[in-house]
């Protein structure tokens, strides 16, 4: 592998990167939350994902596979000169499982944004992170300052384990988004020491 930890031939030290996933249904506020804390305007990249087909070998051609182009929005927080944190907004629908598989690999943790107007849009993400053992928190995004359900009701509706934090947030607000991130990292710290 061509990676290197310290090479005198580069302009600057090469930091290593960490990532946190921000999952939630369409319009739940993923990119808004990423933008609230990112040091760069959220960027968008396209990943061409090919879903596996069963009983089909590689020679039989692309027409038998489903190729999906998925747009990912992400932001960046420079932690220090050796660490950079990336926040990836990930589509919440179940049909993107195949992508979460790759995205969640090595992720520090995840924020599941719950939109109480359509709470069921975050079920798949909760299922996924629970099964994968990825530490996560649920952030209830308060649109227009209002939320339909209290955190305890959301916790109950999602059948969450008691140790999973559920917090209210305003995804547009930097301080509020920061608090969600801090809650997650503290949760990761707990799960490490547990």
């Amino acid at each position, binding site marked *: *592998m*061509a990676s*290197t930890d310290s*090479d005198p*031939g*580069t*302009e*600057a030290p*090469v*930091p*290593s*990167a*960490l990532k946190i996933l921000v999952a939630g249904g369409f319009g739940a506020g993923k990119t808004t939350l990423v933008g609230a*804390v990112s040091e760069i305007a959220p*960027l968008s*990249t*396209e*990943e*061409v994902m*090919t*879903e*596996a087909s*069963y009983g089909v070998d590689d020679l039989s051609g*692309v027409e038998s*596979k489903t190729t999906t182009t998925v747009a990912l929005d*992400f932001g960046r*927080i*420079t*932690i*220090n000169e050796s*660490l*950079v*944190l*990336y926040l990836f907004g990930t589509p919440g629908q179940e049909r993107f*499982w*195949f992508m979460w*598989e790759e995205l969640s*690999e*090595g992720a*520090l*943790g995840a924020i599941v944004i719950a939109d109480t107007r359509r709470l*069921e849009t975050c*079920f798949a993400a*909760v*299922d996924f992170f629970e099964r994968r053992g990825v530490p996560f928190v649920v952030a209830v995004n308060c649109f227009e*300052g*209002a*939320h*339909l359900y209290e955190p305890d*009701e959301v916790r*109950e*509706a*999602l*059948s969450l384990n008691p140790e999973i934090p559920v917090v209210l947030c305003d995804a547009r607000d*930097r301080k509020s988004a920061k608090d969600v*991130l801090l809650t997650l*990292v*503290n949760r990761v*710290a707990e799960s*490490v020491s547990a």
Partner: protein
Amino acid sequence: MQAHDEFPDGIRPVPPQRDVVGDYGEDFAPEEAGPLVRPYVIAQGRDHADTVQLDMISVVIAAKRAEVDELALEPEQLRILELCRKPQSVAEVSAHLDIPVAVVKVLISDLLNRGLALARAPYKAKSPVSRDVLQAVLDGIHRL
């Protein structure tokens, strides 16, 4: 943040309940749904057989004193080297140059093989994350 304002008569909707079993059914076979790199045109038909394993958040930087034979490279690769004078993740390169991640990986991989760039693999959170790293992340977020 006041809840329930819309329901002055006290009649409130019941939240939908997640099925805790969360059965994915037989379709759930993540091991088989790995990424399949399908680079095209600008990657000159090379596939992932000769590519270095790069992650979306592998951080790439151009090598400082490397001799660059501009004719041997794709124009996109020259743009990547330009962009990576400062450390950039694969995802950032993809976003800035508007080239899909899978293609960017192939182009960067070629630059790595030529010794024109260096990449640093992501911090692996799989093994327990060290306290120091977590504390650094907390401090970094606090400073925002």
